[in-house]
């Protein structure tokens, strides 16, 4: 625990200071312009300023800080993927979460309580064995467990013995966890701005001036600035933003909906998800049950919520935990996800020399916030794609080197 917290607890004059300075005027020129003030952009700003000595950085955010997909996801942190490239990347992501509160001197409420994915069919169980072996090989904590162990890990579960959705086993990933999304973004923002990074809220990028394969200027609603290097990390807006620079990403946008119940006493001690029911649940530190599932079934640029999806999620949740039937919903929301064809992100170089992509995060971006920030910063500082990110290049769609994470992402994780 950071000592600062203890000091606050003992002080009569609780020092209330803002973590993030007010938005300054734009300077004419920056070494690095980060488009998008969400978790990923702010993490990159933190790593650039702390580990690469690059502080002449502007983070441009159209709305308010971390109000997009950073605020709309369901904060699952895990590394139980299936490709070796994916596991290596997300594994480091989990490790960086383990150290994040210390790194940022900011309590991000990381709670490493483990993730339990349920199998209702033999076919699912077979895919779990493959994921478990891939994960063990890469050094993550993951194992296939039987129904008895599932019961012990989550005693309130309806096992549906003899029923059509009988739980016959599970994938137990004890590295899995959750963290407070606002704290993650605020922590990075506070650290970066303390080192001189400028965070410009309500600053919308309207276009780019391009000369000889380089972005020379970034045009915003608050003025035009010169940029040495540019990174795009704007979540659901990535397709549009890249197009402004003439780059067409292989992305389709779908809404992703989630909801929370009224707060309850702590009872759900792991993250629980069901492959067949397309539903997952986690209890937040406030006691709310966060319920999420798969993306909407057709593409749309909208953050509306639908009754269909609420009913579907409620059906899944009450099947797994029947006593939830009388619990009320408190909030519902949606985000726009930028889905790639292979359910892996697009990171690294673009067709423009000084434009770097941190895109295609679909439904799986929050867990990668620190690791994407770390390696994107390394990439931008060296102007050379970090080896960790090489497999995630946009070029993989031209060379058919896909990283298929469909089975380990979306609703079926």
């Amino acid at each position: 625990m950071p000592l600062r917290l203890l000091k606050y607890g003992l002080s009569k004059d609780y020092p209330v200071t803002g973590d993030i300075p007010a938005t300054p005027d734009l300077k004419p020129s920056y070494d690095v312009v980060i488009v998008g003030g969400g978790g990923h952009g702010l993490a990159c700003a933190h790593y650039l300023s702390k580990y690469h000595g690059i502080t002449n950085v502007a983070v441009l955010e159209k709305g308010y800080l971390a109000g997009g997909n950073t605020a709309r996801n369901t904060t699952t942190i895990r590394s139980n993927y299936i490709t070796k490239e994916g596991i290596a990347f997300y594994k480091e992501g989990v490790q960086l979460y383990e150290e994040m509160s210390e790194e940022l001197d900011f309590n991000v409420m990381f709670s490493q309580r483990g993730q339990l994915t349920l199998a209702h069919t033999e076919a699912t169980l077979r895919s779990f064995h493959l994921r478990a072996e891939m994960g063990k090989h890469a050094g993550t904590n993951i194992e296939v467990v039987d129904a008895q162990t599932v019961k012990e890990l989550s005693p309130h579960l309806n096992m549906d013995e003899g029923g059509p959705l009988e739980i016959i086993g599970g994938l137990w990933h004890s590295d899995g966890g959750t963290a407070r999304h606002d704290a993650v973004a605020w922590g990075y923002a506070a650290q970066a701005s303390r080192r001189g990074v400028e965070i410009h809220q309500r600053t919308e990028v309207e276009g780019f001036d391009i000369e000889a394969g380089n972005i020379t200027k970034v045009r915003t609603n608050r003025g035009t600035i010169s940029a040495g290097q540019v990174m795009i990390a704007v979540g659901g807006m990535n397709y549009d933003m890249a197009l402004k620079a003439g780059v067409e990403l292989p992305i389709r946008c779908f809404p992703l909906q989630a909801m929370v119940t009224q707060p309850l006493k702590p009872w759900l001690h792991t993250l629980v998800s069901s492959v067949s029911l397309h539903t997952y649940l986690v209890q937040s530190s406030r006691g709310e049950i966060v319920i999420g599932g798969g993306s909407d079934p057709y593409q749309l640029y909208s953050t509306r919520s639908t009754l269909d999806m609420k009913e579907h999620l409620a059906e899944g949740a009450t099947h797994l935990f029947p006593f939830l039937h009388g619990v009320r919903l408190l909030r519902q929301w949606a985000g726009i996800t930028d889905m790639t064809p292979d359910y892996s992100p697009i990171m690294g170089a673009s067709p423009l020399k000084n434009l770097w992509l941190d895109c295609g995060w679909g439904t799986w971006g929050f867990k990668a916030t620190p690791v994407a920030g770390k390696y994107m910063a390394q990439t931008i500082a060296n102007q050379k794609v970090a080896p960790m990110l090489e497999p995630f290049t946009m070029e993989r769609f031209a060379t058919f080197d896909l990283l298929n994470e469909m089975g380990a992402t979306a609703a079926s994780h």
Partner: protein
Amino acid sequence: MKILTCPMNGPRNINEFQSFGPLKANPDPETTSDQDWARHLFRADNTRGVIVEWWRHVPSNYFFLAERNATTNEVIRTFDPSELEAAQ
């Protein structure tokens, strides 16, 4: 409940339908470069305006096309694929 009007079965609950994504041109595999073939496979219309997309009415296994606004979700019209062939 959202209703989608199937050209064959009339207005039905949208849960009876499956989206198959935006309509794409069918390039000739003999004459298309590898680059363009990859593009054909992995890119799809993701504009914010009106998109033309494939849908299937699952119980009758009938495929048709819809013009839908990808921002407002307004369905402008649905039609049988033969209309498209007739227009070509």
